[in-house]
């Protein structure tokens, strides 16, 4: 029988923030920044490069706008859990790692 541990909001938000940051980092290291000239209509070097530019733009704006929002939301979730002293267990996951949030852990048995 497999146990499903609840993953806190904080943990989930941070995980998403890390994923988005890694995606942006990869796009940046691949040098896709130079293809952002799609914005001025200058990128004429084929659809692949144009796609690279669009991908970079997407990951960049996700990194700049969404990552900080996710990190702040994670902080808020932690703070809320600490204040109320009760967790807000969130979506189930098969992640067997223990939750490091301040929320009490109540493993639910299936």
């Amino acid at each position, binding site marked *: 029988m497999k146990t499903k541990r609840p993953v806190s*909001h904080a943990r*989930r*938000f941070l995980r998403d923030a890390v994923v988005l940051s890694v995606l942006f980092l990869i796009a940046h290291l691949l040098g896709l*920044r*130079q293809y*952002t*000239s799609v*914005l*001025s*209509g*200058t990128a*004429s070097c084929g659809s692949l490069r144009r796609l690279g530019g669009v991908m970079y733009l997407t990951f*960049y704006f996700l990194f*700049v*706008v969404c990552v*900080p*929002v*996710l*990190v*702040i*939301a994670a902080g*808020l*979730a932690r703070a*809320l859990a600490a204040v109320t002293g009760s967790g*807000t*267990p*969130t*979506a189930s996951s098969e992640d067997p790692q223990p939750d490091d949030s301040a929320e009490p852990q109540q493993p639910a048995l299936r």
Partner: protein
Amino acid sequence: MTGPCKDVETADRKRGDSESMKLSPRLRRAVSALGLLAVAACIWVPCLHLLFRRDIGQYRATQGLSPVARELASTYLAVWSDPLLRERELATMRRRNPEWDFMSRTYMVLALANMSLRDSRYKDEAIEIIDAIIDDTLDREKAEGHTHFLLAYGHRGSWAVDPPRSIFVDGEIALMIAARRLVEEKPTYKQHLTERIALMVPRMRQSPVLCAESYPGECWLFCNTVALAAVRMGDVLDGTDHSELLESWVRTAKAELVDPQTGILISAFRVDGTPAPAGPGPEGSSIWMAAHMLAVIDPELARDQYRRARRALGRSFLGFGYSREWPRGQEGAMDIDSGPLIPIFGASASASGLAVLAAAAFEDEDYLRRLMTSLECAGFPTAAEGGLRYQASNQVGDAVLLYAMTEGPLWQEVRRRARR
């Protein structure tokens, strides 16, 4: 039904209602997550601009060159000093749009002229590059024909005024030559400027609104104000007097070329002054530059146009500045001048770039700071070998930005010589 039974039934119904109103755990979790994200967004989004906001002194200096202007200049001095590199960059521009090739030359010359007037250490290098640009432009025009720098539709169609000539080409070439001569006289260019002005002025006079065609059947405000500024510069350089033409133009423009809703000069019109379909109303990609050019023709009209454009087109959202291409309610179709527009906001990259120039020229620091904040966020500045370029921009965009960061001394020189 007896009393106790009725009570039980009511209690059951209430319990049932409360059960049905209870959110499922999954939905409750989603709602609480969304709530947290919404609160976090309310905290972060209004602060986002602070991440990109830099001191205005980084872009504009009262004397000498600002740090960002120096970095940007370093990149393009290297490009323009190297014939191979220059040809490669211009060829890229030309493939996309021959106007970009041409305009990148004009803005670069204007920027270099201002740089050498701001800081004499740049003068020798700047003059060398300016001469190379002007000579190359004149050579290309001679070899490929007068319409070489025009879009495809400039090569066909019927021009209202014969022989076919574009004031876009004549005006910008005259402006480049005049700027060069204001930095330092070069006798061989004197004849070139006189000839260009002699070509432009009679063509302008043939139109009831004193404007010549840039393209067959299309007079553009942008090009005609550039031409007028060049005529003005020619007057202060050579002692000629076109004040009557300039005054008549201002009078006519106020009477015939103003959009009734906004009071802004319209962008494109026919030789008789009727609005042309290509730009029948005010446009950000025209008016910011036109207002800047008008500053040496009629400063009062220039400032009035800037104020009106600022009101109708200048926008700011959460600390980020931008320019609309068209006033609200007068939207047109996206074209090569407007570039891609951001939906809902109607923001145009080319209009916003030229708004940087106008905000700098009219010393609108607040708007300039907001525009530069947007540039830092979405222009993708990239440092390389001591230089800087904006990846989202192109050579003409960067040349406009460099000109905006250095603008001032050239127009001051025109005014100073006009007073003398």
